[in-house]
Structures are given as structure tokens and as C-alpha cells.
């Protein structure tokens, strides 16, 4: 599966856990729209650390960095793990 598919699948799972089965586009806001909360951000952060080695302590964290599938994918430039 490509990176976009992986991220989409992860976000779908996260939303489903909250009982949110509505669809979403890659550019749709997830956190600022209120569909996901800051506690869910923790899971996104762990996912990004494990998948791509993103270190938010280094790049600084703000919610807009992970607010949509597109913005999460843009974080790959901070990848430390190859692939």
C-alpha cells in the first residue's frame, strides 16, 4: 500500500473508533473541524514517529501539521526512517 493509502486507512480507523463513519477527502480538516480531538492527536503522533520517524520535538508541533491527510503526508519531508 502507498503512503497515502496507509495514512487514509489509519485515519479511517481513528474516526471509526469514535463512531464517525462519514467519509472524508484528503484535504478535509480533521482536528480544527472537531472530528478528532487532541487526545487523538497523540495516536497520530505515535503513528508518525513509528512509521516515518518524525520527531516533533525537533520540528515543533502544531495541530495544523496533522489536520488533514494531505498535511500528514507533507510531513514526510521530516522523515528519518527511509522508505
Amino acid at each position, binding site marked *: 500500500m502507498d503512503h497515502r493509502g496507509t495514512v487514509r486507512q489509519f485515519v479511517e480507523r481513528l474516526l471509526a*473508533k469514535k*463512531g464517525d463513519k462519514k467519509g472524508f477527502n484528503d484535504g478535509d480538516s480533521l482536528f*480544527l473541524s*472537531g472530528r478528532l*480531538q*487532541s*487526545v487523538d492527536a*497523540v495516536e497520530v*503522533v*505515535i503513528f508518525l*514517529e513509528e512509521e516515518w520517524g518524525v*520527531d*516533533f*520535538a525537533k520540528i*515543533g*508541533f*502544531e495541530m*495544523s*501539521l496533522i489536520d488533514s491527510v494531505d498535511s500528514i503526508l507533507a510531513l514526510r519531508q521530516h522523515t528519518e526512517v527511509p522508505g
Partner: protein
Amino acid sequence: MHTAATAPVVFDRSQLADLRLIPPIEKYPKLVLFAQTGVGKITVWGLFVLGLWYFFRTPLEWVPITVSLLLITVLPKWRWNLVAACTLATTAIETRSLYFLAAIAVGALLFWCARQWPDSEFSQRPIAYLVVGCTLLIVVCSTIPRNANSYLPAWRAVGLATTYLWFVGYALMDRTAIVKKDLTLELGTFHPFWGSTNTPFPKGAAYLRRIEAKDDEQLAVTRLKGLKLLAWAILLALFNTLWTFFFHKYLHIPWARQVLAASVHRGPYPWYICWESQVLSFFEFLLQITVFGHWVIASCRFAGFNALRNTYRPLSAVTVIEFFNRFYYYFKELLVDFFFYPTFFRYFKKHPRLRLVAATFAAVAFGNMFFHFTRDYWMIPRVGFVNAIVNFQVYAFYCVALATALSISQLRRRKTPHLGFLRGRAFPAVWVIFFYCVLDVFGSTERNYPLVEHFRLLGHMFGVNF
């Protein structure tokens, strides 16, 4: 019987789900179009400020926000400058002084420093510096003798510092924000004219930039959502009045503070009265926070910012962490932004569970305590620094207990989400309410009675007297 003959035979559950006390006016296309016209804008503004009158006691409180919203309605392109100007004017009118400008000037200076020297230690960890700086200021002021000339000005400075602490904090966080930022925007969010507590509603300028209406249609929708939320706030406030009358005036159920005082003076009410009072207290606090948050966020929305509600369906929460998230959203966000994330991103990365617990304790135990201790700074000149800390024991216990419960709630993932309504939603929701009712025995911010007295009341409620 004509009515019976035409009534639907099968009950449609979706009809119940669609039943709303306040219709979704922002989804009516004709109304949205009307709200974009000149007459529509003024009509919606008129309705809004009329509703807002319910929450203000005097014209002096009502007029500034009314005029501010009118200016922003008429000149939406100047929104940011108007937000800043109206915030300064409203604060000057409310406080009847210009001392607050000193706090804003310090905040602006810190923001400028953080942006000017991005690689400095201060710029790397501005919040830590802010928290330590505020603590030092309080400690130093505590050493000033009561009869010294500098006593009153010093404590006034502490008051300003604690009032603006978290607003400045958000401004410092915004230094690295991706969206456009400048000092004018930051100033407008320091105790914005639409209302706030020491908790910034809703967060800082960078956040407002992201949620502001981008075109006329979005602006009309956001305003209609604001109007709807205000109507909801008025309904809940009226319900709160009826609730208070019925339970406390008609049924004479004592207030929670009376129950605690009676227990302290060894004349406790019967255990079931204590429970009644405690449960009522929980719902009353919930109503108060909801009403306040609703009208503040409604005003913020009317200014053109589509902010999330401060309280959103808390009674539907099925876990302790979910309730915490839904109850007082912007305070929770403050704790997360200032304490949880910094800890989570820096420490215990190799130990996932410890990492989560440490970050939760940093936010809900330490952050929560620090917020309330500095918010209630006026206790310090009254009883002294050490006694103020000693008197804080009950709330400190509350914070640690809450942090423990939230840590467990996060670590325990719900593995069976499809249990049906009763086992999946109703029972867990009741359990969550029960938990917070019990915890609220320690949740009051009164500073008069020691921890043991709160335990004595709790024991009495469970039939254990000591």
C-alpha cells in the same frame, strides 16, 4: 378518531434523532443568502445583541460588545484590526484603567524577542520561561512587607501577570505558526472583547486565523451558527434558573457548600441528602460552564470565527477522558498545549505507557494546579505564601486523582465498541457521571477546610462515619 387513524404505525427512530429544539438555521439556503445582504446582516446583528442582553446586567457591559460586533458586521474586511481595537477599548471600559496595557506591552515584548532570536534558549522553551517567571514574581512579591509602598503595586502586577499569562503563552506558541501572524493579531486575542476567563477563548491568533470565515457565505453561516448557539445558551440559562428554583427553593435541597460546612461542624445532613446535593452540584456546574461557554463562543462566531463549542454533549461521554474532553474544551486544550505536548514530545519516548502517563500528569496534575494556584493568587497576600500552598491541598488532591483516572482511561482502550445502547452507551455514561460526582467532593476551589474534612463527607455519603 381522526388523529389515531393518521398516526404512523411504525416508530421512526431517525425522526427522533432529527428532532431539534433550535432548528439548524445555518443550513437553510434562503436564510444564508438573506444573511449576506445589508438588511440581513443588520437584522441578524439586531437579534444577536438582543439575545446577548440576557447575559449582561448593565448597559455598560452590553454596549461595548454590541458596538464591537456592529463594527465588525459593517466592516468585515477590517475584522482583525477591529478585534484588536475593540478588545483594547472594551478592557479599558471594563477595568476603568489602563494598567492592563503594561501586561500587553510585556506580552508584545516577549513575542517580539521570541521571533527576533529564534535560536535562543527562551525562544526554544518560552512556556517554561513564562511559568518559571510567573512563579518567581509571586515568590518575590510574597516577601514584600504589607506596609511597604511597593506592596500594592507589586500585587497588582501579579494580578495582571496571572490574568494575561496564558494569552501571552499562546502568542509565544504562535511565533512558529504557519499562518500569517503579526503583533496586531496577537493583541486582539489578549482577553478578546467577546469574553474569556483566564483561559483563552478560543486559543491564540494563529488558531483564529485558521477558523475565520474566508468568504461572505462562510461568514453568514458562521454568524447564524453563533445566533443559534446564543439561543441555546439562553434556553439552558432559563433551565438553570428553573432547576435552581425547583431543587433548592421548592424542595429545599441544600447546596454542596452547605452540606460540606454541616459535615465540618459535625452536624451532617443524612447521607441521601448529601448525595442529592452532590449530584445537583455536578449538574449545576455543568450547566454554568455550558451557558458561559456557549454565549462567549456565540459572540466569537458572530465576529466571524467558526470556533468549536466549549462544551459539547458531555453527558454522552462513555469514558472519563471523553468527558474531560467534552466538558471544558478550551481549558483542556490549554493543559494539552502548554503541558501535555511539551512533555509527550520530549520525555520517555522509549516507554509508551510511561510517556502517556507522564504527559497526563504534567497537564492534569501539575498544569491544572499551577493554573488554579496562579488564578487564585489573591489568597497569597491574604494568608501568606506557605499557607496558600497548604490551603491548596484539597484541589491538589483533586488534580492528582483526576490525572490518575485520566491516565487509566487512556491506557484502557475500549475493546468492545458494539455492545448495543444500554451496555455500550447508557451504563458507561452513567458510570462516568457517577465518577465525576464523587470526584467533585474534592473539586470545589474553596480553601477553608482541610482534605480530611472532604474525606469525612465522602465517607458519610457511603455510610462510613469517622
